[in-house]
């Protein structure tokens, strides 16, 4: 279908999905920028989603977020064509090429569903007349995998989600959390590289939900799937997503990394969403630091002031490594803020953090060091910037 090199696992290009008879008129109204309400009033058609363009890289967890009815599921379900786009293309990576699922033949679509894209449902959608093991093997059975291979692969998946003791039970004998583990195992069993998850944990109580989120992240470290995850819960989106797309009234209004969403909301709708988010839960040292190029020089030979109050300075060598540190005029040691408790008893010290260190840890380090600034070193120990108390306050108050 295309011979261009495939760079994304899934790519939506200008996808419009309209439910109802009056497709053409509704599409014309979409082109004029009409809202969902206007389209419904004039044509009776429901706008599922409009003008959605989004590329999802391999191995990424991309979250679709928005209020109920904002079109998240509609867009997600276009990937395996449970919803058929009225217009636009959805490219799905298939080996070393990409297939447009909106235009491929039935056999190709079936192969994509059997081998490339698996799905986890909000209400689990298990088959109650099948045992746990038979449910997990469902996709393999449809794909015609032999009984012996199926048995072996199902056993492996059950082990993975910790349900090997439950293989012979029926779904209703399991708790909600366990049922969704079966749903996960069923999706993993086909070994499809792309996973669609439509609010998979929303039906679970909060404790179980957190647990399954953690398990998913843990599994993802080794499985490296491409996951499109629908959620209406921003906390969940921030925790799970590498990237988040916010949807409103069928349209994607902002796409970005979690902290971008929190730091630079694109409109009032997004701002409303993040108003209850504790910025501490997403911000890292990287998001609030001042770059070393913006720091004030503190004399000759590469000395730089880390803070605006000029209490602490570093001497940075030409290779970017820290050569010496000084605090309140006395030579100081520099200590990782991962070992807050292993403080040098005698000498003054300055904490350093990595770019990915949570802001919370940085603040704790400041607290321990009587509001001294914190230095930022990258993973080869090169000096990249510093965080003073004012930078932290700006980050938390979301002014930049």
């Amino acid at each position: 279908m295309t011979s261009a090199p495939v760079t994304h696992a899934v790519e939506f290009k200008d996808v419009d999905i309209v439910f109802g008879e009056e497709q053409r008129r509704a599409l014309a109204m979409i082109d004029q920028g009409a809202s969902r309400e206007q389209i419904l009033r004039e044509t009776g058609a429901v706008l599922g989603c409009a003008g959605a363009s989004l590329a999802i890289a391999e191995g990424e967890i991309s979250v679709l977020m928005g209020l109920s009815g904002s079109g998240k599921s509609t867009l997600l379900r276009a990937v395996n064509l449970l919803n058929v786009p009225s217009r636009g293309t959805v490219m799905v990576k298939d080996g070393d090429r990409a297939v447009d699922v909106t235009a491929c033949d039935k056999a190709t679509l079936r192969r994509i569903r059997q081998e490339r894209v698996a799905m986890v449902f909000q209400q689990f959608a298990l088959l109650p007349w099948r045992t746990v093991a038979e449910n997990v093997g469902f996709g393999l059975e449809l794909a015609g995998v032999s009984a012996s291979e199926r048995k072996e692969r199902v056993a492996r998946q059950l082990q993975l989600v910790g349900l090997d003791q439950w293989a012979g039970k029926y779904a209703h004998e399991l708790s909600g959390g366990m049922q969704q583990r079966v749903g996960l195992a069923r999706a993993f069993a086909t070994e499809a590289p792309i996973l669609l998850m439509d609010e998979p944990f929303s039906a679970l109580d909060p404790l179980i939900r957190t647990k399954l989120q953690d398990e998913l992240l843990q599994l993802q470290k080794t499985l490296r799937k491409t996951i499109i995850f629908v959620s209406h819960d921003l906390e969940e989106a921030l925790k799970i997503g590498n990237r988040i797309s916010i949807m409103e009234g069928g349209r994607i209004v902002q796409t970005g990394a979690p902290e971008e969403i929190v730091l630079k909301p694109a409109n009032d709708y997004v701002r409303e969403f993040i108003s209850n988010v504790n910025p501490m839960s997403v911000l890292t040292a990287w998001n609030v630091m001042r770059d070393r190029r913006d720091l004030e020089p503190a004399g000759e030979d590469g000395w730089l002031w880390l803070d605006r109050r000029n209490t602490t300075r570093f001497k940075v060598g030409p290779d970017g490594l820290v050569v010496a540190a000084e605090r309140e005029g006395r030579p100081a040691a520099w200590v990782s803020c991962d070992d807050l408790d292993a403080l040098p008893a005698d000498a003054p010290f300055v904490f350093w953090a990595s770019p990915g260190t949570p802001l919370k840890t940085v603040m704790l380090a400041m607290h321990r060091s009587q509001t001294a600034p914190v230095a930022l070193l990258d993973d080869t120990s090169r000096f990249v910037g510093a965080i003073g108390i004012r930078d932290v306050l700006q980050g938390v108050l979301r002014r930049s």
Partner: protein
Amino acid sequence: MNWLPEILSEKIPVGRWGKLFFDFLTANFAWFFDSIASALSSVLGGASAYLLMVPPLVLVILIAALAWFLQRSWKLALGVALGLLFIINQGLWKETIETVVLVVSAAAASMAIGVPVGIWAAHNPRVYHLLQPVLDLMQTMPTFVYLIPVLILFGLGVAPGLIVTVIFAAPAPIRLTYLGITSVPKPMLEAGEAFGATRRQLLWKVELPAALPTIMAGLTQCIMLSLSMVVIAALIGANGLGKPVVRALNSVNIPLGLEAGLAIVVLAIILDRMSRIGGGVRR
């Protein structure tokens, strides 16, 4: 203002048209209906004859064993055995076997027609809309009305009995299969689609298993409806428990009527309990 009475006085010849139609069928397709009738009566007659060759007590034990096998219940097996012994005791064994053969084959035929038609209608709303009035007709048209054409086409005997019974009983499995298939939860269907099921796989691996309890309720209903037709079947010459009832009616014979009626009730209970397969299991 005077056109109204004119139209009303002009009787629409529905009855005559119907008769013309059946005259046409008998004139041109008599060979066809005759061969169906003789095939059916030899199959059903043969089945009854075979079963009657088995010593009654052996058959009672076999049926009780079947009851146990279907429902895993000793109580039911015992009840079935006692019920059948009562029937033997009343001297109605032969009639009961003939009725069982008629009822079971009518139910089998109704299911063989009803399940596929029900599935077809469930997948095809247009078919369902067309089918709806036909089913209503089959179930509400007084049986005696279609007895006449069936008699004309198939003559007297067990064949017309079977056909009338099927006409009366088949709507139940059609409706219940339709109901079962159309009420399969959407997420289950989507799970099938999302994992790449073909239409056929969707039917066999999702829809039918999900609808099975409802379809089985259709089987039970179908057997009961077939049993309720034994007296009418007897009127057109089918053998079985209906015969003594008709005889009792004609000769105002209270004891005979009571015996045959009780045997029918016992048989109904046995068949009902035994045919509740799959209902209430799981879910």
